């Protein structure tokens, strides 16, 4: 049967096209911000495994620096903080350490800040078995969390900072934070807001962790010879001291 072309049908097609276009646009409107992670030592370029002096001039060799980041938010100058539900595992020994934030599209935004949780949110931590993730490669899944989980009832390791003072004999240090009490948030604002265009995928931010400042802060210094080890549960005060320094060791690359 051949349907005759009628003005009414023509009108229907005309109405459908913008509708379809709108539906497609909504999906495309999601913007992405790619956050790259870099590590420095006292403001200078640094790679895991290198030796660099601490505040007393002793050579420090970091051997493992990993963390979970989560509970992101971007600061829209008009609407305030917009939460973004992302968890990423960052291994600073890898060149491509990064997280990707997907921002639901509601038009262009003007952004002047980023908030980032340092650890795993409480509702995803203790009593959450990595084996329960259907995608084992999820950052909190079985494979994705390898080496960053304390056991099925104990939760995730939020951050790992391990290495040694290359003194004679060597002093090994291990700072593992992972209890809900050690979850921290860092806020990084910038003076010149920038435009996050609807649907844009080409925004890049580099966050820098100064590993030196994880031991030496304005109000506290951790000396690995005196305080070499915490796994949080066995030394909560040291874990809290460490995450407080770690929280303030972040900056955004200009």
């Amino acid at each position: 049967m051949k349907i005759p072309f009628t003005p009414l049908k023509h009108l229907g097609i005309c109405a459908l096209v913008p509708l379809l276009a709108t539906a497609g646009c909504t999906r495309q409107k999601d913007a992405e911000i790619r956050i790259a992670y870099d590590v420095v030592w006292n403001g200078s370029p640094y790679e895991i495994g290198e030796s660099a002096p601490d505040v007393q001039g002793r050579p420090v060799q970091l051997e493992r620096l990993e963390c979970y980041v989560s509970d992101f938010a971007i600061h829209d100058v008009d609407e305030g903080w917009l939460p973004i539900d992302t968890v990423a595992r960052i291994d600073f020994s890898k060149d491509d350490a990064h997280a990707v934030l997907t921002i639901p599209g509601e038009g262009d935004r003007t952004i002047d800040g980023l908030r980032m949780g340092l650890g795993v949110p409480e509702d995803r931590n203790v009593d959450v078995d990595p084996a329960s993730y259907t995608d084992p490669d999820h950052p909190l899944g079985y494979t994705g969390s390898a080496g960053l989980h304390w056991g099925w009832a104990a939760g995730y390791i939020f951050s790992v900072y391990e290495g040694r003072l290359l003194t004679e004999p060597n002093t090994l240090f291990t700072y593992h934070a992972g209890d809900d009490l050690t979850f921290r948030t860092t806020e990084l604002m910038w003076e010149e807001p920038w435009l996050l265009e609807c649907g844009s995928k080409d925004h890049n931010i580099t966050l820098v962790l100064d590993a030196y400042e994880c031991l030496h802060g304005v109000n506290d210094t951790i000396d690995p010879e005196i305080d070499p080890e915490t796994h949080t549960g066995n030394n909560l005060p040291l874990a809290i001291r460490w995450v407080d320094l770690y929280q303030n060791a972040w900056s955004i690359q200009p």
Partner: protein
Amino acid sequence: MRVSTTFILGLFLGGLTLVGCDCHGPEPVWNPTPYPLEIPPFFPPMDLPADNPLTEEGVRLGRMLFWETRLSENNAMSCGTCHLPEVSFADPEPYSTGVTGAIGTRNAMALINMGWASSYFWDGRALTLEEQIFEPIPHPDEMNLPWSEAVARLANDDTESDYPQRFFDAFGTTEITADLVSKAIAQFVRIMISSDSKFDQWRRGEASLTDSEYNGYQMFLREGGDPEVVPGGQFGADCFHCHGEAGLQFTDHLFHNNGLDPSFEADPGRALVTGSPLDSGRFRTPTLRNVALSGPFMHDGRFQTLEEVVEHYNSGGVASSTIDPFMKFGSGGLALAPSQKADLIAFLHTLTDTVFTQNPAFQNPH
């Protein structure tokens, strides 16, 4: 000459029929049966490669190939020669002996729950099971048979094994390749799952641990060291950092230097793969499942008994440039009392799963 249209049409249709005709009978149909993999309670999902899904036919073929001695130069050695079921598919000798009499340099690892591993060999140089399986057959110190010869032997098989047919059943082709051999064996190894130890039964609420076993489990989970010497020490055995029980696999799948040697000339371990000095002396953490069966222990099989292993960790190990910070080498070791050591070993025995080692589906089918 006039030829009728009907005649031409008849010739055309007849030609089409001939072209379509299979003079050798119908093509065999390839219809593999998906393998019903059951993930045990508390285990993570298994990350199966998209290009090698488990099938009944593939697993069956893999089992035959795993035990196939014709894959060795002298027709005397199979994968199962160095991965014996009764010792959790490991080798009771520190080093395996190849077909030429050459001795290996590392202890054959136990094949147990390998479907959850993220790298293979002690140094993690293979990232997939398929990749791992490529190595032992042509290796001169192991089975010493070039892959070309191995696949030719299988392709020309006129025994009841009928490998060409089995490869067709598993992969839809009678063309046997090294790639398909490794895929089949990988399928078989992936279904070798241990989940019925006493500890598994306890976790499922089906069994009770003795006081000694439970104390050992608590030791396993506690931080090591005397708190007077090691800040935060809990007089535990500190096993859980590397042999974590997430997913009930008792390994973190990472690489550690557990303080065996002061230097690494004999075997640099993971550094051979990464080239990083930080990885010198580091080896992959093996699972503790069936550890009571799978000695000797360590990458070089230097310890014969669990008692020796526990004593090594209790001592704190030997200092070196990459010794793991979990080792208590400079602070008096773990300082475990004899009864604590006994409890820890009792716990380790609860990880023994003879249902796994005696599973008829894993034994030699030839």
